[in-house]
C-alpha cells in the first residue's frame, strides 16, 4: 500500500529570489549563504513518508521549520520545490478547486493558539467546516453535537471561545478539525499554550481519541517528552533539515548527529527503551514464574523486575519465551554507570 503522505526533496525558502537561488545551488542549500542573499530557509530537503494510521511527531527548537513543513504539506504555503503526495496525488500541482476539495474531505488541522472564530459559539465553530462545505445547518449542528460529546464539552455548546479556558478552547479546535472526519490530521503544537497539568490531561485525551479514530497524524511539538508519549516515529528538525527520523527508542539509543544526541541526553532511558533492547536473547529457554513482555517500556516493569529474586523471562505477543533479563541491566539503565 502506498504511504498516505509522501514528501520527496521538499524545500521551502522565504525570500524574493528563492526559486533562482535554489536552482542555482542545485539542491545543496546552505542556510548561512542564503541568509546573506536575503533568504530564510524554512525547510531544507525533506524526504519522508507517513503511513496510513501512523503518528509522526515532528520535533525541533523554535524556528527549526516544523510549522513551515506542516504548512507545505497542507499547502497553506507553496513549497519552493519538491514533491508532496497525498494518497498518491501531488498537491503542489492541484488547482484551487481541487485543493479546497482536498481540505474539505481529507484534512483537519489543529492550531497552537486555537484559532477559533471569535464570533461563533462552540457549536458553530465546530460546525463551520461542514457549513462551508454546504451541509445544511441542521445536519451540521447535529454532527457538531456529536463532536462536542466526543471531546467532552457537553453543556458548553453555546459558549463563545472567550468564555472558555485554554484547554476547553483547544478541545473545540480538535472537534472542529475532526468534524469533517478527515483521514489526515495535522496538529501544530496543539498543547504548547496550555499549562503542564492540562497538557498531560489533553495528551491522554488525545491518545484515547487516536485509539478510537486511528488517523494518519503529523504532530508538531518542541517538547521531547510529549513526542515520546505519543509518537510512532519522530522526526527531529534543525534549521530546516530533518536530522533524524526514526522510532523513539532508536533515536534515544542511536542518535544520528550531535544535535540529536543533545536532545536525547536528558531523556530518562527507562521511559523510552523497551525490555527487548536490554534482554538476553541467548537464553530463550529461561524458566521462572514471572514474565515481562518484550514490548514493555522498562519504566513500567522495573519495579517488578527488581523486586523479584528469580530470573525473569521475556515473552512476546504470543506468550512464547524469547529471552531473559538480568536485574543488573535494569539498574544500569535506571541509575547509569
Amino acid at each position: 500500500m502506498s504511504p498516505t503522505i509522501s514528501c520527496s526533496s521538499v524545500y521551502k525558502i522565504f525570500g524574493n529570489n528563492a526559486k533562482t537561488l535554489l536552482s542555482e545551488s542545485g539542491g545543496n542549500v546552505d542556510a548561512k549563504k542564503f541568509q546573506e542573499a536575503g533568504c530564510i530557509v524554512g525547510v531544507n530537503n525533506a524526504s519522508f513518508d507517513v503511513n496510513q494510521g501512523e503518528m509522526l511527531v515532528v520535533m525541533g527548537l523554535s524556528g527549526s521549520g516544523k510549522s513551515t513543513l506542516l504548512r507545505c504539506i497542507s499547502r497553506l504555503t507553496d513549497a519552493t520545490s519538491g514533491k508532496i503526495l497525498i494518497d498518491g496525488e501531488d498537491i503542489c500541482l492541484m488547482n484551487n478547486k481541487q485543493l479546497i476539495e482536498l481540505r474539505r474531505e481529507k484534512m483537519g488541522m489543529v492550531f497552537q493558539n486555537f484559532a477559533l472564530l471569535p464570533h461563533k459559539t462552540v457549536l458553530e465553530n465546530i460546525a463551520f467546516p461542514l457549513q462551508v462545505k454546504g451541509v445544511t445547518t441542521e445536519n451540521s449542528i447535529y454532527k457538531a453535537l456529536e463532536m462536542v460529546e466526543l471531546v467532552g464539552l457537553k453543556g458548553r455548546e453555546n459558549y463563545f471561545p472567550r468564555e472558555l479556558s485554554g484547554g476547553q478552547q483547544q478541545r473545540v479546535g480538535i472537534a472542529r478539525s475532526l468534524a469533517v472526519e478527515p483521514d489526515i490530521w495535522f496538529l501544530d503544537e496543539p498543547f504548547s499554550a496550555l499549562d503542564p497539568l492540562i497538557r498531560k490531561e489533553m495528551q491522554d485525551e488525545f491518545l484515547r481519541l487516536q485509539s478510537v479514530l486511528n488517523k494518519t497524524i503529523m504532530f508538531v511539538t518542541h517538547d521531547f517528552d510529549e513526542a515520546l508519549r505519543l509518537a510512532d516515529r519522530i522526526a527531529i528538525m534543525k534549521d530546516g533539515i530533518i536530522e533524524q527520523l526514526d522510532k523513539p527508542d532508536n533515536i534515544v539509543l542511536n542518535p544520528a548527529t550531535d544535535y540529536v544526541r543533545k536532545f536525547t541526553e536528558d531523556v530518562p532511558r527507562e521511559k523510552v527503551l523497551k525490555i527487548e533492547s536490554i534482554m538476553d536473547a541467548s537464553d530463550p529457554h529461561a524458566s521462572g514464574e514471572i514474565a515481562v513482555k518484550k514490548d514493555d517500556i522498562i519504566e513500567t516493569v522495573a519495579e517488578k523486575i527488581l523486586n523479584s529474586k528469580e530470573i525473569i523471562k521475556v515473552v512476546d505477543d504470543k506468550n512464547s519465551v524469547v529471552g531473559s533479563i538480568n536485574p543488573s541491566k535494569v539498574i544500569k539503565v535506571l541509575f547509569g554507570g
Partner: protein
Amino acid sequence: MDKNYLNIIRSSKPAQFGILLIVFLLLYNLVPHNEGNYFWRLPSLLAFIPIKLNEIIYAALYEWFPLKVWDPIFEMYEEKAAFREFTKSISKGLLFLITFVRELLLGGDKIIDVFVSDAWLKDNDWMTWPALPWTAATVGAFLLGFQLGGIRLALLGGIGSLYVSIFGNWVPSIQTLSFVLITTPICFVLGLSFGIWGYLDRKVETALQPVLNVMQTMPQFAYLVPIIALFGLGDHAGSIATIVIATPPMIRNTILGLKRISPEVVEAGLMSGCTKTQLLFKVLIPTARRDILNGVNTVIMQCLAMVVIASFVGAKGLGLNLKIALNSLKIGKAAEAGFCIVLIAVILDRFTKAWANKQVDYFENLTFFQRYKLLIIFGTSILIFSIIAFIANGYFDKINYLYVIPIEKGFTFAHYIDAAVDWVWETFFYSLNSFNKFLLTEVLGPMKKAYLGMPVVATLTLTMGVAYIIGGIRTSLLVGGMMLFIAMSKYWDRALITMYMATFAVIMASLNGIIVGSIFAQTERGSKIILSVCDFFETFPSFVYLIPVIFLFNITDTSVLIAAIVYATVPATRYTVWGLNSVPLSLHEAGTMSGVSRIQRWTNIEIPLAFPTIMLGVNQTVVFTLQMVILGALIGTEDLGQLIFGALSRAQDGPGVAITLGLFVSLMAISVDVIVRKWAEERKKALGLA
C-alpha cells in the same frame, strides 16, 4: 578639544536644540523686514496653483468629453460634458434617496411626483404619503432600544425622541436623521470595500495611506466650495461632503481590524475548506467585526458633526436651524438645536455600540410571534397612532399636533438659556471682559505679532532643524518641502496666523490633557471615569463647542481658541490615560520599592514611559485644534479659515482657492504628524517598548 565639543553636540539632542534656537533667534533678529527681501518673505511663485485648479475643474465640468444629450424640453440634442452629466446623476440619485427616506417619515408627495405626471398629481390631491406620527416613532425608538440594549437604551431612545418631538424639533431632526440614514450606508460600503482592497493588496494600501492622511487633516470647509461647483447646492451636496470626510476613518478601521486577525485564524478558515469568498465573508469580516462596527460608529458621529457644515451647502435639518440661530445671535435657540444634535448623536452612538456587541442566540426556540414580538408591537402602534392622528384631523383645525408639533408651538427652554446668558453677562461682564482683554493684549496679541514678524528663513530653519534633529535628513526634507510649498503661495501670512492659534491651543490643550489625565490615571476607577467622560465629549459635534464661548467672549480669537482648547483637550487626556495605564505594574512597584515619592514617580517613571503614547495624543490634539481654528472662521477670525470660508461666496475662483488652502492646513498637520510620530517611535525604541 574641538573634536570633543563636536562629539558632545552630536550625541546630545538638547545641545542640538540649543544651537538651533540660537540660529533661529539670530535669523529672526537680523533679517530685515522689508518686502522684496526673499529672506523675509518668499515670492509667490505658486500663486498659479489655485487658478490652475479652477481651470481644471471648470474644464472638466463644461468642456471635457462632450456628449450629445437629448433635451426633452427643447426637443433637441445638446452638447454636455460627460463629467458634468456624471456628477449630475450622482446628485440626482442621492437627492432621491434622501428625499425618499424623508418623505417616508414626514409624508409628502415629492417621491410620488417622480413616478406620475404633475397634472395627475394636482387632480388627485389625496395622493400623498401620510406622515409617521411622532407618537409612533417614539414607541419605535423605545422598542428598538429595548431590542438592542434592554430597558436603559429603551428609555434613552424613547425619552430622547419624546423630547425632540414635544420641543418642536421633530421635522428638522428627521431631516437630519434621513441625511444620516442615507450617508452612513454609503460611507460603510465605500469604506469597507476600499479597506478590504487595501488589506488584500499591499500596493493599494501604500497608495491609500497618504491620500487618507490628507483627507483626514483637510479642514471640512475646504471641501465645500469644490462640492458646490461639482454637485450644486442641496441636501445631496451636504451628503457628499460628509461622505468625503467620514469614509477615511471607515477605511482605516476596516484595514486595522482585518490586519489584527491572527494569521492562524485565516489558516483555520482555509483548512476548513473556505473558498476566497467564504473566507472573506465568513471568516475575515466577522472576525474584524468589532473594528468595522467601530468604524460605522465613527461614521455616524462624523455625519452628525458635519450637519452644521453641511448646511452651508444646502443641507436642511438641525444644522441649518443651528446655523441660522447662531447667525442671528440667538443663543437659546442655538443651544436647543445643538442639544438635539447631541441627543441624536448620543442615541445613535449607544445604539450602534450595543448593536456591535449584540450576540445572536441560535438556540432560542421561539414561535413566530415571540420572535417578532417587538416588530409586531411597533407595526400595530403605527397603525393605531396613525388612525388616531387621522381621526384627530377633524378635531384640530389648523395644526394636527398628533403628527407633528411645529417648532413655534413646541415647548422651549430657549428663553431660560437666554436669561441665564444675560445673567452671566451682567454679573461677570466685567471680569470676563477684562480676562478677554488681558488675554488678547498681553498674550495673544504679542504672540501673533511675533509669529507674523518671523522671517521665512527663520521659520524654515526652525521647522527643518527640529525635523532633522528628531527624524534625520529625510524627515527634514519632507517637512521643509511641505513648508516651502505654503511659503511660496500668497497665503503665508494667513498661514502664520493659523499656526499661532494652533500652537497656543495645542500647548494649552496638551497641558490640560496631561494634567487631568495624570490625576485620574492614578487609580483604576479614575481612569474608567475619565475615559467615559472623554467618550461623552467626543460625541459632541465640534461646532457645539463654539456656542457657549461666543456668548462669553464675543467674536474674538479668544472664543475660537477656548473652543479649540476644550475640544482638543479630550484626545490629549485620553492618550495620557492610555499611556500611563500601559506602564507596567512591575515598574510602579520597583519605583515604590526604591522609595520615590508620588511626584517623583510621576516625573521620573510614569511620564517618560508614557511619553510616546502621550505624544500620539498631542498629535491628535494638533488635528483637532486645526479643525476648530478653521471652523472658527464660521464666527470670523482672520486666518486661513476665513479665506476658505470666504471662498464659499466666490463661486468662480472659489474651488481652487479652497482646495489649495485646505491642502495647506493639511500639510501643516501632516508636518507635525511626521515629526511627532518619528519622535514617539524613537522614544519607544529607546525605552524598549517597541
